[in-house]
């Protein structure tokens, strides 16, 4: 187990800056996810932590020790690759035991350890198979086994689920979380899937074009996004944003076209132009609020997402269970003023505390 600290990490490929001035601290035993769209630099950061890619400037500390110049092995990190990178000519047993074999451990010790890891990952029956004789999920578990057997101080995961189908992905996600709870090894996980990040992480680092947008717990990232970018990137369905303005009409309102939303009484209109954002669960459809027309009804099982529109905007509401609403029906929309998020239109940063 170890702490990991990135200090002013920058990576340039020629003129292109892939990662800019990242500062990040991962505490002992913490599970941290680097989240962002493809090309945001998250995999590059992971490769730099692993020692597979050199940093252009900045320092990486593992357990307080600077490791910039150390090889991946000397850093004592283990990595699970996106495409698993199993050695195709070795059996499951040999794949998992390869690192021990390189360290010239005695044969019976390797065998015992491999057996233990294989049992933990439910791979005992496949020990003598080649990777190509395994299913995707089994290959994935071999890749994890290869990392686990090392008993490393840090686990690195590079989008390990992206090649699995949806059902298997959720199952494996649970397995990784359990594994982390059991072993408690500091982990850094890279993904572009916000749901994965929210469900696995102690803390999430949201990245955008090589820069850190926000670093915080899943709750913070979800309910107190630091920027518009984070707000839109996290959550399903995507947060609705409005570019309207404040009006004083016997109380403070925010107006978007013909829709007027009451804003929390205690709030003063700030001196800058403001966009507001609201999540579907804080939008209520019924008898109160402003007028709108149902445009789209999307049942997803436990909820139905109902998108309503008015002359100059639209918003999606989360309705429990199955909604009986039909498109083109008229309805009133109410938005919980306490849950509105305010963003400075110019800087895109969040304003309310």
């Amino acid at each position, binding site marked *: 187990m170890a702490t990991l600290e990135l200090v002013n990490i920058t990576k340039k490929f020629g003129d292109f800056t892939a990662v800019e001035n990242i500062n990040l601290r991962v505490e002992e035993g913490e599970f941290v996810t680097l989240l962002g769209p493809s090309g945001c630099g998250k995999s590059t950061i992971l490769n730099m932590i692993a020692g597979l890619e050199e940093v252009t400037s900045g320092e990486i500390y593992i357990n307080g020790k600077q490791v910039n110049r150390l*090889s991946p092995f000397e850093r004592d990190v283990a990595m699970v690759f*996106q*495409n698993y990178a*199993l050695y*195709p*000519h070795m059996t499951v047993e040999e794949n998992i035991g*390869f690192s021990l074999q*390189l360290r010239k451990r005695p044969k019976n010790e390797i065998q015992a350890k491999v057996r233990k890891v294989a049992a933990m990952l439910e791979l005992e029956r496949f020990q003598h198979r080649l990777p190509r004789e395994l299913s995707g999920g089994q290959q994935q578990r071999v890749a994890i086994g290869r990392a686990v057997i090392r008993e490393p101080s840090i686990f690195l995961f590079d989008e390990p689920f992206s090649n699995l189908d949806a059902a298997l992905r959720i199952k494996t996600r649970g397995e990784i979380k359990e594994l982390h709870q059991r072993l408690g090894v500091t982990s850094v996980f890279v993904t572009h899937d916000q749901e994965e990040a929210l469900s696995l992480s102690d803390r999430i680092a949201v990245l955008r074009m090589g820069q850190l947008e926000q670093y915080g717990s899943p709750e913070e990232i979800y309910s107190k996004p630091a920027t518009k970018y984070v707000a839109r990137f996290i959550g399903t369905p995507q947060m609705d944003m409005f570019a309207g303005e404040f009006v004083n009409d016997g109380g403070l309102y925010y107006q978007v076209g013909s829709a007027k939303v009451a804003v929390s009484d205690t709030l003063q209109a700030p001196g800058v132009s403001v966009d507001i954002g609201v999540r579907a669960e804080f939008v209520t459809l019924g008898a109160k609020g402003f007028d709108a027309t149902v445009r789209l009804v999307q049942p997803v099982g436990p909820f139905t997402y109902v998108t309503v529109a008015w002359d100059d905007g639209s918003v999606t509401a989360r309705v429990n269970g199955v909604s009986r609403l039909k498109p083109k029906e008229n309805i009133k929309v109410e938005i919980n003023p306490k849950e509105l998020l305010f963003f400075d239109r110019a800087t895109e940063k969040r304003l309310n505390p």
Partner: protein
Amino acid sequence: MPRYLTRFFIRFGLATFTLLSLGPVIWSVVTSLLPLSALTSRPPDLNPLNITLENYSLVLDSSRGLFSGLINSFIIATFTSAVGLVVGSMAAYALARLNLPGSNKLLLMILATQMFPGIVIAIPLFLVMSRTHLVDTHFGLIAVYLSFILPIVIWILKGFFESVPMELERAAAVDGASPIQTFRYIVLPISLPPLFATGVFAFIEAWNEFFFAIILTRINVKTASIAIAEFSGQYQTLYGQMLASAVLASVPVVALAIIFRRFILEGFVEGAIKA
């Protein structure tokens, strides 16, 4: 064009090609099995009752030079392909993966050595070899063959090594393997089929080579191809014996080619990477 016509033309083309390539081979085998008298009569007497192994027993007589020629060819081709593979695979891996400065220029230079026809370097090469007393030695011929086989080996294998997924090597690095260990335990084993194919190619090249062999050998290191050519003399050509020798000399090459085909068809990186 209707499909059956397309198929007809493709098959017709393939059949023609097969006949054209197999014709000389069949003719060689037939000729080698007939006595000289049957071949020189007009028209040639192809009566199967005349079939005899006389030509074979004659050429295998040790005094005729074919047997020692086969041994020389075997020594030279084996060493050429073995050294070519060992040196060539390491060079190719380094050029494919180590990001050495100037490696592209180096590759072009390696290729450039192949752009001179053999005849251009024949005389200077002979002078060099004779001054270094390498004429008519196994070592001399092996060195010369390596000079043109290595570049080909390097180019072929570099292309293959580049196609080996980078993640495999990264995974090995994370597992604690040094670059040499990565090459030894990961890259080399999964590269066996192309290595074998390239090795067979190098062997065949060296085995069949005639031009440099005739310039650089006299008595001791005569290769099989030279021994075969010597059946064609100033006053007569012993066709039956010459082609019997040729058939015998083809056996190892054909055998290699058959094994090599099986290897090439094997999928080798399947299962490494989930695409």
